[in-house]
């Protein structure tokens, strides 16, 4: 019995330490690839405020198919294009929106996150953000065709860091293409939401 106890104690300690190690290691963003400072914008817009937003259908990480026009007459829509999974600024932009749902709800807006990554990559990447309340869509194949239809597909095949605001009539009310290296401030999103909803 004494021998059993002596053998078990170190392994219980190991189990305890192992659990703590996982927790302690979690915040380290060692899996994020840092591409360095990139050209601020590397595309040319193909849409403008006041025109009808190009329709599209994309697959979501949740396993559904999402069509922009399905929201017409029902909800305002915000498209959040981000350049790529597992990169520095993108990896915290959506977690920020994850605690900003009330702003979107107040303006009856649906948020759709879009990148040109494939579904498995987006699945792995977004899982470590916690449970996102909005759909994340893959514009992977044909590569970046939706980003390209809005003119936010960069010359290197990634998307711009762009926010597109579309009202219930399907009309573009705001287009905000930010420097790819900089996250757009939340107050900009809130101001554009107000403009879009008229509230």
């Amino acid at each position, binding site marked *: 019995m004494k*021998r059993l106890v*002596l*053998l078990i104690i*170190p*392994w219980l*300690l*190991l189990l305890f*330490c*192992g659990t*703590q*190690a996982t*927790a*302690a*290691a*979690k*915040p*380290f*963003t060692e899996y994020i690839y840092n591409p360095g400072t990139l050209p601020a914008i590397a595309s040319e817009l193909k849409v403008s405020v006041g025109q009808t937003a190009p329709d599209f259908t994309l697959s979501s990480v949740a396993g559904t198919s999402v069509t922009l026009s399905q929201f017409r007459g029902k909800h305002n829509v915000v498209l959040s294009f981000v350049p790529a999974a597992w990169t520095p600024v993108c990896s*915290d*932009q959506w*977690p*920020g929106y*994850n*605690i*900003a749902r009330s702003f979107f709800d107040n303006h009856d807006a649906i948020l759709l996150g879009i990148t040109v990554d494939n579904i498995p990559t987006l699945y792995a990447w977004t899982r*470590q*953000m*916690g449970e996102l309340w909005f759909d994340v869509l893959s514009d992977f194949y044909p590569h970046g065709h939706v980003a390209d239809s809005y003119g936010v597909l960069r010359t290197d095949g990634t998307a711009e860091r762009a926010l597109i605001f579309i009202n219930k009539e399907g009309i573009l009310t705001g287009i905000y293409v930010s420097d790819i290296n900089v*996250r757009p*401030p*939340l*107050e900009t999103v*809130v101001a554009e939401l107000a403009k879009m909803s008229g509230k």
Partner: protein
Amino acid sequence: MKRLSSLLVTAFFVFFIAFPIIVSADETGEPLPNLTLKVPDNDAYRDYLGLKGQPGEDFTFEDIDADVLLIQLFSMYCPFCQEEAPNVNALHQAMLDFSQQDFKVKIIGLGANNSEFEIDHFRNTYDVKFPLFPDQDMSMYNTLGGKGTPGFIGSRKGDDNHYSIVLRQSGGFYQVEEFFNELLRKSGYN
């Protein structure tokens, strides 16, 4: 004897291989850069920090009436900071419960690359009661040697009114009591 040897090998692995992974804080003893912030509008924050200046005026870390000052580096956008927020709130409460007139432990948060609007949203979302300040250009984060968020820098005020860094931690602490005790111990509190 053979059994004892295997036991010792296992124990060695546990303590010298696995344990260091959880120890992310280290003592440095270096001076805490005496950075400048704006006196908050909020009366309760001014009282908490013991500031005599008027809202909008400058103050420095050394003006904060604390024996031990913990600086939290956070971001509204950081999911781990969001996850850690209830723990940090509990730590703040533990500091309030512990502090006496002759020994005060306080905490402030610096929002790395966050605007005033963004730190307000973080404060409201998590009901943060201690003062948070924006560090939109990350100049304070960089001067303090930040290495990711959440991060913590603990410092002890000396007789010369200067703070010295006693603890640095990258990542969350998860165990409130354990972390608070470590901060006190490294600050020389007995």
